[in-house]
Structures are given as structure tokens and as C-alpha cells.
């Protein structure tokens, strides 16, 4: 738009102020994680640490079960994402490329899932998992997360497969490829960019998942990071804020790294997921 110089400067200032509101709290958590206990009783929460200390990180590591939570989160994330990629790429292949009468109905069925609130499945899954004995295991987190990640992942794969021409598949078949080879040797490797988008998008959702983890897991040993973070809230009526900020920072660093490396894929994945609903 054509604005005068002054209104442009004005707009830049407003954008900047809003940016500070969006970003400063995150920076503040990180800075506060280096504060000494005495700094928290100071009357200025915006102040910098009087001296940078790693005590909070050490105490989180020594006292908490953060190591266990971290590895649980990692197991859940890796397994879930591997299954989501595999299942959704295969299903999308059938829907978009194979001649199959119900393809459009199946796609519709999957896309309905984007609209479904997680709350409605909590009670039935809790009961089912209790009966089958998988409650309190990481499996009880992996299964529903695969289920809820499938709709958008299938949608992303289907949109990509549309652009793969049938001729190159025909050429492969001429060369003697069967249907499984066409998929594994050709279609799947070709979808590398879509795979990256699906991985980073799901990684962030799964890493941060709270409701399933809070409902299906009661043992400390099977907890994931987000639920583990609650350890620091109001235990014994007191919150150890230094340790809390350190724990938040440790939890958030992996997603931040993934985000800053792949931010285009994260954003395109999340907005695609959003606008489809």
C-alpha cells in the first residue's frame, strides 16, 4: 500500500510493540532461568540476573525426573511420527493414485477427523485402554496421536500426489515395477518435501501434547515432558520458579530448534492443517 513516510514509521512502531508482546515473555523465561533464588524476591521482575547461574538447570537435572520424561517424549514422538508418515503416505497413495471405487468417500471420512474435538474420545479411550491394559504405557499415547494426526497428514500427501503425473508411474511399470515398488522406489522418495512438512508439524504437536498424557498416564516412569512440567507447579504450596523456568527452557529448546531450522515447513504445515478445518 502507498502510505506517507510518517504513517509508515508509525505502522513500523506498532508492529514492533506487538512483536515485543509476542516474543518478550519467551525471552524473559529464558533469562529468568539463569537467575539466583535471591533474584526472585526482588521487586523488579524485569531485571537481569544479578549473576548468571546454572544452578537452576543443575537442580532440575538432579532432583527431577526430567531425563526420563525427555526420553519418554522422544520415544512417543519418534514412534508416532514414523507410523503417521508410513500410514498416511500409503493411504494417500491409494486414494489419489490407485483405481479404487471408494477413494473419495474414504478421503472424506478421514478429513472429517480434522473437525473432531479430542475431548469426545477421552472417556471411551480411557475405558478401552483400561480394559486392554495398555493404560499407563506409552502405547496409550502413541495410538490416539497417530489417529488424530492422520487426517491432516493424508490431506497433505494427497495434495502432493496430485502433482505426480501418471506417465512416470506408467514408465516405471513398463520397466517391470510392481505396485509396491512403484510406491517404495518412486512415489515415497519423491515426496521428501511433504514428508519433512508432516514430520516437523507433527513433531511439534506431539512433543507438546498434554491431554492424552495427563489422562492415560499415572506412573511417573511413563510421563512425558509436558505433564512432567507440572511437577514444578505449586508443590508443597510453593513454586520453585528458577527451576520451573529452567525446566520450561529445556522442554522448549528442541521445538524451538526444529522451528528455526524448518520454520517454512512448520508454518505451511500448521496453516494447511488449520485452513482445512
Amino acid at each position, binding site marked *: 500500500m502507498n502510505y506517507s513516510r510518517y504513517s509508515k514509521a508509525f505502522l513500523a512502531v506498532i508492529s514492533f510493540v506487538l512483536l515485543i508482546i509476542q516474543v518478550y515473555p519467551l525471552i524473559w523465561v529464558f533469562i529468568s532461568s539463569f537467575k539466583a533464588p535471591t533474584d526472585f524476591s526482588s521487586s523488579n521482575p524485569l531485571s537481569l540476573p544479578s549473576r548468571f547461574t546454572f544452578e537452576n538447570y543443575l537442580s532440575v537435572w538432579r532432583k527431577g525426573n526430567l531425563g526420563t520424561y525427555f526420553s519418554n517424549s522422544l520415544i512417543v514422538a519418534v514412534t508416532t511420527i514414523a507410523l503417521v508418515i508410513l500410514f498416511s503416505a*500409503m493411504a494417500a497413495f491409494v486414494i489419489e493414485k490407485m483405481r479404487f471405487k471408494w477413494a473419495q468417500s474414504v478421503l472424506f471420512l478421514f478429513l472429517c477427523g480434522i473437525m473432531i474435538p479430542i475431548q469426545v474420545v477421552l472417556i471411551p479411550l480411557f475405558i478401552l485402554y483400561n480394559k486392554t491394559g495398555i493404560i499407563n504405557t506409552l502405547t496409550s499415547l502413541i495410538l490416539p496421536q497417530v489417529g488424530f494426526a492422520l487426517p491432516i497428514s493424508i490431506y497433505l500427501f494427497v495434495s502432493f500426489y496430485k502433482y505426480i503425473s501418471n506417465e512416470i508411474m506408467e514408465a516405471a511399470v513398463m520397466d517391470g515395477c510392481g505396485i509396491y515398488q512403484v510406491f517404495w522406489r518412486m512415489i515415497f522418495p519423491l515426496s521428501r518435501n511433504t514428508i519433512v512438512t508432516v514430520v516437523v508439524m507433527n513433531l511439534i504437536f506431539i512433543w507438546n501434547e498434554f491431554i492424552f498424557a495427563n489422562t492415560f498416564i499415572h506412573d511417573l516412569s511413563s510421563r512425558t515432558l509436558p505433564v512432567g512440567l507440572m511437577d514444578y507447579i505449586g508443590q508443597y504450596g510453593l513454586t520453585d520458579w528458577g527451576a520451573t523456568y529452567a525446566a520450561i527452557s529445556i522442554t522448549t529448546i528442541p521445538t524451538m530448534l526444529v522451528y528455526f531450522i524448518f*520454520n517454512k515447513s512448520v508454518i505451511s504445515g500448521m496453516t494447511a492443517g488449520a485452513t482445512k478445518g
Partner: protein
Amino acid sequence: MDKILRNRKAVLVFLLPALLVYVFTVLAPILWSMYFSFFSWDGVSDMVYIGFANYAKMFGGDKTFWKAFGNNLIYVFIIVAMQVFLGLLVAILLTSITKGRELFKTLYFAPAIITSVAIAQLFTSLYSFEPVGILNFILQQLGLGGWSKPWLSDLKWALGAVSVPEGWRYIGLYMIILYTALLSIPSDIEEAARIDGASSWDLFWSIKMPLIKPVLTVSIIMATTGALKGFDIPYLMTNGGPGRVTELLPTYMYKTAFSSLDFGYGSAMAVFIVIESLIAVAFIRRMMESKET
């Protein structure tokens, strides 16, 4: 070729894993929820069929349900206003600045990738009164110390205070969606309007807004349905309290099922949350369409 693509066994091999997991973790549980909602059941003793009694209790006698429903509406309003209105504002600002757009976009979006547990803790300390949190500290510095209060335990302000974090974390998401929509408007439309003497405001209100309306509608629907199922942050920050002033339908449902072990009544509320979302979507579509004429 055709024969290979019609291979029925391959269709099953490729499709079944996804379909099975999806049906058993997403679709079937909805039907089970509906079924459970007609029973009285604590999860241990026998299920007792009670017909529509759970629904009758929900709509008829349960004051907490209506309180939570009302709170939910306010919660939705605050979140939609923040996400769509502020998101649109930032998107417009972004189209007008020339340098650093990519950096701005990346940074604005950052809160969206943080777990709700961390966000709940972050805002709990921002709102804190003793020791003084950032919000109260800034108010004091501005000479508005009289306004500082323990936001989360203040009966009047607690609901607003638990709504803001959810709105805040996704402003960036809506900003990017709306920004993309604004960018996709062909520049010759803008130039033609300029030549006809349209002001920036005219240009925005009578040309850009109608052009991005479909995206705006989708954004409002997303923000609304997202806020209707809002759970994590209020549950973690106040757990519905003080009293019931921050109780939302999802938090009430959760407590009914998993703390009071009333699975039947909890399921009835879960079903209500789904229906409520569907009605909201239909309502927003209708409203946005009728505004056109």
C-alpha cells in the same frame, strides 16, 4: 497399468493400517461416547441405562453446566477477538512495512510452538501479585498501581486472565493466514482503485476486506471451534476456580468424568461439545454469508 492400479490386495495393504487406527481412535469413540451418555456409570459397577436423564440433568438442573456454558461464550469471544482481530491488524501492518517481514513472521509465530503447560506457567507468573509479576510491575511503573491485583484469584478478572494466553499464543497463526490472503490480492486491482481516487481506508474496507472474506470466515470458524474446546490452559492455571468463575465446558466435563467418575454424564457433555461446535460452524457460515447482501 490399469490392472496394477486396480490390485485389490495392494489397496487393502496400503489402506488398512491407517483406516484401522483412525476408526479405533477417532471415529468409533464418538459413537461410544454417544452410547455411554445414556447410562449412569462410574466405570466400576454395572452400567445402568437411564435414557435421556443425563441430558435432562444437563439442560435442566445443573447450574454449573450453564455457568460453564456462559463462561465458554466469553472465553470464545475474547480469543476470537484477539486471534482474528489482532491477527488481521498485524497482517495489515506487515504488508505495509518493507524490511524484515520474514523475521517478523517467524518471531510472531514462535509462541504457537510451545506446550500449553509452559504457557500456563509463564502466564501464572506474569499475573502474579506476590512476588510481583510483570503485569502488575508494569502497572505500578505506569502509576496505575491501584489496578494491580492477583488476576487469577480475582473473581471479576480471572476468566479474562485465563482467556488471554490462549488468544496470545495463536495470534501469529492467524496473522500468517490472513497475511497470505492479503498478499494474494492482485496488485492491479489496488492500482485501479487508487487511480479512481480510493483512500487507503476505502481500499481496505471496500476492496480488500470483501476479497479476503472467505479466508476471514475460515479464520473465525477455526478460532471459535478452537476456543470452544479450550481446555489445557484454564485447567492448568485455575482448574475452574476460584469458585466456578473460570469453569469451561471441557474442564467441567473432564472433572466430571475423571475426578467424580461419572462417565455417563461426562460423555453427555462431550457429545454436547461436539454438537455445539457444529452449530457454531453453521452459524458463522450463515452470518458471514448474509452480510454479503
